[in-house]
């Protein structure tokens, strides 16, 4: 079995056994990402969900070649069938990948935008560099680029610090869309936005997905994930523990991994009950299942042995297929 369903078309991004280790002073390694395996096809949106500190953003940085020097990666992440993002040099990444083949919608737009230049100047620069639009066509193209991300025309001459969180996010989204990249990578694009803006932002991203791009959205906002995603990958303590079709995951039959079930149950529109405890430190992961200490189903096997990722699931209690022993137990 493989980590993904057989796509009709070649995947835009194919990640195999991606691991990221940070070497720390004193020889303590941090296992930020372990054995991640997934793919994203054209026209498809995969949402990577999980709590803060679980390794989601490190995974995104690895794909863009933006990891710090003390990070070591293994595995592969092949873009468009020909470029392994983990081994491609900085020159390739800078000149042909970032902005052109992967558009990044960043996590903190206020930090991503250049503080000393207006939004208009930044849009025009990106247009010049990425699309070759020149001279008198630039102002019109900048307006169109702003409009694609619903950035209001009246705010184009503002500096990043003069924008609200929502407007800064839209400016950053507008920049990400300029290069018409086949893969959009959105790292927490909706943090700090109100519900209407969240929906508009993800609907906008969905619209660009429906025109044939692939979208990898990293988020802790489950409502946003439900709205935009075709498939969901759940990350816990640096590992992907479940991949599921979004409809199966958010509606019936629901998530299969106990952690994913707990995460959904914590939503205010559901039980609003937290999962007890906190995730383990990535520098001191337990021998067995990283979730065992917080899991109501954990037994000796869970604490002794790390569950393999099979049939899109890493849990000892649901070893095969789509059947769901936990669910029956929970419903009984």
């Amino acid at each position, binding site marked *: 079995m493989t980590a993904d369903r057989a796509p009709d078309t070649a995947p835009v991004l194919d990640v195999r056994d991606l691991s990221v280790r940070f070497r720390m002073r004193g020889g303590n390694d941090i296992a930020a990402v372990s054995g991640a395996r997934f793919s994203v096809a054209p026209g498809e949106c995969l949402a990577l969900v999980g709590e*803060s500190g679980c390794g989601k953003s490190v995974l995104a940085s690895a794909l863009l070649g933006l990891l710090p020097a003390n990070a070591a990666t293994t595995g592969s992440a092949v873009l468009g069938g020909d470029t392994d993002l983990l081994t491609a040099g900085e020159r390739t990444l800078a000149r042909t990948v970032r902005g052109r083949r992967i558009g990044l919608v960043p996590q903190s737009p206020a930090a991503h935008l250049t503080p000393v230049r207006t939004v208009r100047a930044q849009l025009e620069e990106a247009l010049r560099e990425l699309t070759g639009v020149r001279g008198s066509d630039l102002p019109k193209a900048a307006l169109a680029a702003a409009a694609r991300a619903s950035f209001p025309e009246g705010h184009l001459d503002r500096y990043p610090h003069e924008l609200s969180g*929502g*407007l800064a996010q839209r400016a950053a989204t507008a920049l990400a869309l300029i290069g018409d990249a086949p893969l959009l990578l959105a790292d927490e694009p909706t943090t*700090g936005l*109100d519900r209407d803006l969240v929906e508009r932002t993800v609907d906008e991203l969905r619209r660009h997905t429906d025109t044939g791009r692939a979208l990898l959205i990293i988020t802790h906002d489950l409502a946003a994930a439900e709205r935009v995603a075709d498939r969901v990958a759940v990350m816990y303590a640096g590992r992907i523990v479940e991949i599921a079709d979004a409809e199966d995951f958010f509606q019936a039959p629901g998530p299969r991994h106990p952690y994913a079930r707990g995460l959904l149950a*914590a*939503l205010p529109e559901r039980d*609003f009950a*937290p999962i007890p405890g*906190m995730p383990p430190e990535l520098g001191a992961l337990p021998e067995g299942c990283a979730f065992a200490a917080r899991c109501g189903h954990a037994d000796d096997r869970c604490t002794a042995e790390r569950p393999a990722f099979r049939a899109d699931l890493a849990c000892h209690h649901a070893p095969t297929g789509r059947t769901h022993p936990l669910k029956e137990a929970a419903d009984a």
Partner: protein
Amino acid sequence: MLELTRITAGYDRRDPVVREVSLSVAAGEAVGLLGPSGCGKSTLARVAALLHRPDAGTMTLDGAVVRGWRHRAPREQRTAVGVVFQQPRLSADPRIGLRELIAQPLRATGRRREVPERVAELARLVGLSDELLERRPHAVSDGQLQRACLARALVLRPRLLICDEMTAMLDASTTAALVAVVERYRAESGAALLAVGHDRVLLERWCDRTVRWGEHHAEHAPTG
């Protein structure tokens, strides 16, 4: 507990962000203030937290009119209000460990003798281990740091807690955990809550009543 009457506030007198807004929170009550981003709700929260002086309007705390904000606020009023912000990274001194972060309000008010006992009590309440308490902000996750910021807001046992988008950066489970901490504190202390945010589902589940930005003019229209 808290009464804001026709508050006008902002960063430019000619163009205030908040215009003539009134809002009240009764003793022990939990009020959710809902509004879209950029509407001025955080500015109003800063006024209520005694952190931003309004241009016009009156504010009372426990019946006493507030006459000074920031360093001009009398200690009695300042320590009655606890506040938690949206971004824990921006509200935590990166140079000090979490234990010290939680203890600082006690030291600042000359109550250092209470530090060991009170910090241990709060660390248990918010779920921070001894090991995490020794770390500095850069070595913990957003969720862990926000737990410490909530503990800091509760350390002086405020009678009013103001949470400005406290959970906007957090995942569903950490959100539910922090809300549970606030509610446990309120149940045992009888403190009031003003929770500011944009998540209608969350605030309606959490609070006794919610007020939508724009509606509070009508709902609390000043008389006379």
